[in-house]
């Protein structure tokens, strides 16, 4: 198989918000290549809608300390508080930087950046909702992605588009490069680099009902996992309350920020019962559970009582048109519902992985509870800093990618300037070549789509908003069976050029492994916290579980793989855990 070699200082894997933000910092300081499975502007950052919070105090009194508190409380106290402080403090500059790059924020009458309310964001430590989210209609993510790409064009960043990174190279404990598969030609490329920044996003495709793109298959986490490096807090997966029923297409929390109301089949504003103070603007995990509970208790809407309603009909049409144009169009296009006049059917949809590759606040990836892998960085959804703890607050992901994308890119470049150039391991592409050839040329009989479908079905059924030991064990045994079947997977397309059949088969491998990590981590967490809700352990247990899960892939001598769980303490600075009430 043909192999091409490239050499750079910094290699960035992934070109969403975090990857491109990192590239902007890094490419002006060190020779930087960005490798991306998709064209940069296809990344799922573009699907984010509601906004990016920062305590600018442009419209209301606010400060970053309140933002930090909300982030910590929203994350059910599993947040590393030093990281949250960094994020909320740097949020202000992150927003201003984006504005200076040209991002077209909505404006106040004075011409400043406008701000609106968002779930879980409050003033005075929970007193009342605060207007903190900076936004551009309901396409803030789109604007961030486009603006960052525009800046990359301006800086002449080197992109390798449709290069699928499949392996991380490590020399003497340090990151030394990556191996990529070029989709267009089927060629293998070995990239030597002094620093590697992973920014590959999440793995929402382990679930069937998800707001995630087809391409969000946890590639970066999977690569790290296969290297024996840990994954942190994988049991915490966020379910966004308002996905279009049946489809999972995201309807921003901004709909509720602008005044939208959730109602059950009796027309009752049921969130008043679950979160009396901030009602529909409670954090996502609480709203999602409340919705699932309404449906479970028979108060769902529709012929099968399978969803609840998001009601915007009382909002002025001008407000809907100006602030929520895209999501109302989704409702019209996909459900044929006119949001001016009718409520929109919604149900929770798998949305965001709080967990991922553990990093410190410099964006450096860890290989145990405190030591870093020199030269390896991660930022964005692939990483777990952990600023989101057990449940991410709305808008904090766009903040995360900007703050920690910038930090990772900057630190990677600085590291690369002084780091020695490492030799690549012997035969660096061997693993990837074997992976591809055995899969493409194998004589398997199992269909990728069938296995993936069953994986998603069992995850939706057993590891979603509500979990029990029984359901998780069921999921685990299903995954076990699917692993066996995956070993016999077939790829129909035997060609080299644009072999997306092969691509999907490889992606499925990552999905299965990550699903297993998720379930194993969830099984061991006998408590309910944030996005992880165990019906058999319905309360938070700070005595035993105020700690991060660290999962490791353990390769036995006989070649069998097991998952070993370890734990890492939570960093607490100012805030002591309290009961989480809204």
């Amino acid at each position: 198989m043909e192999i091409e070699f490239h050499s750079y200082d910094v290699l960035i894997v992934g070109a969403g918000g975090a990857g491109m933000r990192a590239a902007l910092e890094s490419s002006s300081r060190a020779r930087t290549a960005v490798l991306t499975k998709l064209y940069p502007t296809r990344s799922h950052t573009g699907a984010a809608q509601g906004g990016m919070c920062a305590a600018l105090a442009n419209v209301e009194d606010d400060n970053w300390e309140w933002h930090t508190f909300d982030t910590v409380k929203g994350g059910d106290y599993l947040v590393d508080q030093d990281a949250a402080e960094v994020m909320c403090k740097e949020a202000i500059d992150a927003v201003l930087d984006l504005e200076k790059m040209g991002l077209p924020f909505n404006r106040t009458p004075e011409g400043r950046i406008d701000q609106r309310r968002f779930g879980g964001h409050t003033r005075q430590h929970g007193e009342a909702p605060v207007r903190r989210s900076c936004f551009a209609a309901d396409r803030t993510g789109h604007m961030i992605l486009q603006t960052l790409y525009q800046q990359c064009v301006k800086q002449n960043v080197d992109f390798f588009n449709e290069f699928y990174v499949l392996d991380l190279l490590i020399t003497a404990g340090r990151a030394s490069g990556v191996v990529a598969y070029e989709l267009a030609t089927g060629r293998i490329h070995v990239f030597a680099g002094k620093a590697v920044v992973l920014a590959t996003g999440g793995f929402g495709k382990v679930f069937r009902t998800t707001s995630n793109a087809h391409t969000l298959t946890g590639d970066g986490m999977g690569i790290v996992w296969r290297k024996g490096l840990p994954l942190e807090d994988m049991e915490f997966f966020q379910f966004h309350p308002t996905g279009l029923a049946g489809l999972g297409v995201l309807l921003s929390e901004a709909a509720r920020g602008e005044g939208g109301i959730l109602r059950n089949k009796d027309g009752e504003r049921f969130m008043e019962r679950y979160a009396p103070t901030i009602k529909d603007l409670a954090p996502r995990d609480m709203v999602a559970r409340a919705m699932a509970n309404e449906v479970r208790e028979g108060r769902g809407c529709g012929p099968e009582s399978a969803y609840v309603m998001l009601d915007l009909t009382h909002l002025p049409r001008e407000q809907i048109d100006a602030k929520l144009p895209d999501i109302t169009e989704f409702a019209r296009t996909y459900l044929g519902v006119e949001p001016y006049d009718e409520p929109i059917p919604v149900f929770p949809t798998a949305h965001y992985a709080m967990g991922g590759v553990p990093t410190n606040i410099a964006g450096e990836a860890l290989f145990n509870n405190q030591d870093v892998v020199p030269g390896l960085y991660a930022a964005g959804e692939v990483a777990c800093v952990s600023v989101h703890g057990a449940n991410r607050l709305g808008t904090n992901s766009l903040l995360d990618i900007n703050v920690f994308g910038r930090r990772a890119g900057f630190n990677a470049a600085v590291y690369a300037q002084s780091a020695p150039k490492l030799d690549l391991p012997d035969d660096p592409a061997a693993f990837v070549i074997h992976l591809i050839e055995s899969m493409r040329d194998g004589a398997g009989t199992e269909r990728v789509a069938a296995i993936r479908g069953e994986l998603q079905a069992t995850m939706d059924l057993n590891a979603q908003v509500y979990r029990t030991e029984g359901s998780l064990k069921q999921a685990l045994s299903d995954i076990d069976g699917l692993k066996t079947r995956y070993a016999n997977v077939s790829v129909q397309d035997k060609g080299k050029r644009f072999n997306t059949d092969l691509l999907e088969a490889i992606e499925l491998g990552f999905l299965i492994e990550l699903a297993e990590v998720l379930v194993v981590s969830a099984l061991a967490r006998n408590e309910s916290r944030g996005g992880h809700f165990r019906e058999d352990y319905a309360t938070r247990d700070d005595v035993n579980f105020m700690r991060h899960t660290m999962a490791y892939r353990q390769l036995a001598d006989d070649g069998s793989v097991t998952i070993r769980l370890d734990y890492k303490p939570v960093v607490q600075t100012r805030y002591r855990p309290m009961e989480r009430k809204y």
Partner: protein
Amino acid sequence: MDVTLKLRRYNPEVSDEVSWETFSVVQQPTDRVLDALHTIKWDQDGTLTFRRSCAHGVCGSDAMRINGRNRLACKTLLKDVNPGKPITVEPIQGLPVLKDLVVDMEPFFAAYKSVMPFLITDGNEPTRERVQSQKDRDRFDDTTKCILCAACTTSCPVYWADGQYFGPQAIVGAHRFIFDSRDEGTAQRLEILNDNEGVWRCRTTFNCTEACPRGIEVTKAIQEVKRALIFRR
């Protein structure tokens, strides 16, 4: 509901010939064309190749020509494209086809990059944000919606005949900054679009406006750039 799709197939690894292949699938009327393509790929023919990602019309991966019109496969419901008859799906036109529905996007992105699609400012930066009234912000709102899917550019007959033409998307990309009150690179951008292959090649056929899945009034944007060239330089 039984649906028949007639797909344009091309795989130079197998044959230099283009062929048309027909598939039958069972779908809901409210399913997207993308769902039907997935059913084919996942259940019938794994070699069928197309790009897709977000599946709800914001990433711009899956622009294709469906029943002769450029659309996003994920934003087009089967019930809206006359599913009683075979639905034809082919790659967008004017860019080299690489395999099945996948085209080479490089010429398209090259055109985009050549109009300097980024904010240009000079002088010292303010410490806080630049001030811009909501009215000034709204002036260029329409063209900020662009997702670079290439549906407009590849629906343009001038672009089909002459790939040197910048194409509607590049002009949209320039428009977004030309009409941004914060930008100071207007003169340079207008100079670029004043080229032989610039805005003057637009014949106002409105194909681009009709093709845009984001509802951008592309032709209007092009006309506004022409007007700016005449009156603003």
